[in-house]
């Protein structure tokens, strides 16, 4: 059969007609949009400022709802970015630091002496060598200066568990250790997974409990990736990279690593493969790629992991290099390919910072090998390095302070940790300046994206994982339009790892005035929880925006949530942590106040 005939036959054999349902939906939407654009043109020619231009009915099948779009003259552009320069700020308000400056200013995090973790209270022994990096707080931005806010998705929780460790040990954490988004993402807001395809999006708003006055509202955005059951996830090829330098002997960090890895092993499936590399002064393959069904061999290797006493050099560069080499050899595009780094992040030979490690090791690695940076240890611990390594290597970051946290990471949420569902995810909110006067993104300070197209590396969301972001917004007085803004979540396809410019599947959602309730108390428990969690983080962070707030203001909010969700262990624990923070702060104040 010649080529043409064959192609014709293929065409005949596989032609598919679309249903009349689809015809109707598309043509109806096209008519609505055409009318809207006609009206917009007419108005644009008539007057420079437009109130309401047209009404269009758009059937959004992905959302399963018919929405009425009241389009204003404001057209949500797709290519704006979170701008910093034209922001007008009030006296004493934080001014955003451009991303480049933040990144090149990282030395401040690793200077020695008072800079490092020196902010813990004096009533107990402070940890001598903790490395954090401050990203300040986002400013409040006037929509007339910039109405588009873009940030990279982040589902990490490391900061929250580090702060938990501090509080449980009786210290207030250094402000720099607090990343509000990692507090928010620790909690379960009851998002249901999407039924098909892309993520489910949840939007809720209400007056802000903690805002300066009644004109301030909170907008909560939740994104939930689709769930995959442990049986249905892909097989995994894992390279476990364990720090065995002397510092890992402190407080039996290595013992916690061994326990955690045994938990991980018990949650893996027989077909998964594991290799183990240890690094300290150099790096060494402790276990060649071994299927999990040969459990004894793997357990033997795990149990053999011990700190190299007396060796105080840690060559993370060598370790990462060898781990990625091995991961490359094991690479199978049908499987999960991941390097799991278990370390305290204190590297002192070879490349020791996230930028240099990225330049020397990570940037040339094969796409599709992901990193999990799992932090262990307190006393000397480099949060900055571990978190940034994960951010730069399409990775996730967690900090294990207790065996329960190890279980949460390696057992309860293993699939989400292993299998990426959405890659390079960016969230973009375009506020309608006619309705919103100003907005402030709470948290995600080191995830702001710049560049022409809101460019820069997005974040990864694992299967079943969710991300929550809060904006504090101020409505314009007397605004009568209904459309508050639009939300775009863009991602690169995790299967093909290929980004197609301007064509990545995008999930959109509208944000309406009716998504905002009229009282904080009537908002959902999840909303109130998020508001309380963010405020707790902001107080710990000594944020400009929470200067007048006290821990005791947050307590009743969380107590109310707990009444409605009595079985939520995370909320129970949160309540006790806020109470602890409150107590430590009071004791500190009492001890510094002059005795009468």
């Amino acid at each position, binding site marked *: *059969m010649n080529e043409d005939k064959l192609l014709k036959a293929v065409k005949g054999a596989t032609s598919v007609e679309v249903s009349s349902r689809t015809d109707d939906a598309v043509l109806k939407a*096209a008519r609505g949009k055409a009318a809207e654009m006609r009206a917009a043109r007419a108005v644009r020619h008539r007057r420079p400022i437009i109130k309401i231009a047209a009404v269009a009915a758009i059937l959004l099948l992905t959302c399963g709802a018919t929405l009425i779009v009241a389009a204003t003259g404001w057209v949500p552009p797709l290519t704006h970015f979170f701008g910093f320069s034209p922001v007008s700020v009030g006296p004493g308000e934080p001014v955003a630091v451009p991303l480049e400056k933040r990144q090149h200013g990282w030395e401040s995090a690793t200077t020695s002496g008072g800079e490092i973790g020196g902010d813990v209270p004096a009533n107990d022994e402070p940890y001598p060598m903790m490395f954090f990096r401050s990203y300040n707080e986002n400013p409040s931005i006037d929509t007339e200066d910039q109405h588009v806010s873009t940030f990279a998705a982040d589902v990490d929780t490391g900061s929250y568990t580090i702060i938990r460790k501090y509080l449980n040990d009786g210290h207030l954490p250094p402000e720099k250790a607090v990343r509000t988004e990692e507090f928010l993402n620790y909690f379960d807001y009851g998002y249901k997974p999407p039924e098909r395809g892309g993520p489910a999006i949840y939007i809720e708003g209400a007056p802000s409990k903690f805002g300066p006055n009644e004109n301030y509202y909170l907008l909560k955005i939740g994104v939930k990736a689709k769930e995959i059951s442990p049986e249905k996830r892909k097989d995994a090829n894992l390279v476990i990279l364990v720090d065995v330098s002397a510092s890992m002997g402190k407080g039996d960090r290595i013992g916690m690593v061994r326990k955690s890895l045994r938990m991980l092993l018990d949650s893996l499936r027989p077909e998964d493969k594991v290799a183990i590399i240890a690094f300290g002064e150099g790096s060494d393959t402790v276990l060649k790629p071994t299927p999990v069904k040969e459990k004894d061999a793997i357990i033997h290797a795990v149990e053999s992991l011990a700190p190299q006493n007396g060796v105080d050099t840690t060559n993370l560069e060598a370790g990462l290099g060898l781990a990625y080499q091995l991961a490359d050899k094991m690479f199978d595009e049908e499987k999960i390919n991941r390097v799991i780094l278990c370390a305290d992040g204190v590297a002192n030979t070879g490349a020791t910072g996230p930028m240099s490690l990225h330049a020397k090791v990570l940037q040339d690695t094969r796409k599709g090998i992901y990193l999990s940076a799992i932090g262990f240890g307190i006393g000397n611990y480099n949060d900055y390095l571990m978190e940034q390594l994960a951010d730069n290597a399409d990775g996730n970051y967690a900090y294990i302070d207790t065996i329960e946290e190890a279980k949460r990471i390696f057992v309860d949420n293993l699939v989400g940790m292993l299998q990426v569902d959405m890659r390079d995810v960016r969230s973009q909110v375009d506020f309608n300046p006619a309705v919103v006067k100003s907005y402030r993104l709470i948290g995600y300070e080191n995830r702001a994206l710049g560049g022409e197209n809101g460019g820069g590396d997005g974040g990864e969301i694992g299967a079943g994982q969710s991300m929550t972001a809060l904006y504090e917004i101020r409505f314009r007085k007397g605004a009568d339009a209904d459309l508050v803004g639009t939300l775009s979540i863009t991602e690169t396809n995790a299967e093909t790892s290929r980004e197609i410019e301007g064509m990545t599947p995008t999930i959109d959602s509208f944000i309406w005035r009716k998504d905002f309730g009229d009282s904080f108390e009537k908002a959902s428990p999840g909303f109130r929880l998020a508001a309380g969690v963010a405020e707790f983080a902001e107080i710990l962070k000594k944020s400009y925006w929470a200067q007048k707030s006290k821990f005791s203001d947050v307590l009743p909010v969380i107590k109310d949530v707990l009444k409605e969700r009595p079985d939520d262990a995370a909320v129970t624990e949160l309540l006790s942590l806020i109470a602890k923070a409150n107590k430590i702060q009071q004791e500190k104040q009492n001890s510094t106040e002059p005795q009468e």
Partner: protein
Amino acid sequence: MEDSVLISRFKAGDAEAFAMLYDRYKAVMASYVYVFTGSREEADNIVQEVFLAVIRRADSLTPEGNFRAYLLTRSRGLALNLRRVKVPESGDCPEVAADAPGPAEIAESMESAERLADALAALPREQREVVALRAHAGMTVTEIAEMLGEPVGTIKSRYRYALEKLRTFLGEEEQ
């Protein structure tokens, strides 16, 4: 009428222009996605989803762009996103082919359609995809390479292998 003209007219508020674009590409997209995923229902859903997204963002449509490649790439992205890709079943061949032949040929064509569906199903996804784009969209190897962001040589060899395999498969059946 050129795609670019129709896009401009739609942006000026002409719904008919969009209907023409839709008619031009809906079957091509659906068939491409079907060969890709093996599901008629998903093909239908994806065509709808892609067009609704295009309409939603009509403001940012540019007449200069390659509209066909844009539609196909978006369809592809969504199809890959489904992650439950299955190949066309042999029993799942269409009731009526698009350019249906005369009544005398129908019986024979149904049979060969079934065989072809089998043969296609046996091909790796990448090869199936190239054949589908050639057959349904009438794209050249160079256009396909450009759209998929792959070297022309790669697409050429995928296409060659695919044709070889289809021929072998059908040839064996005929003997």
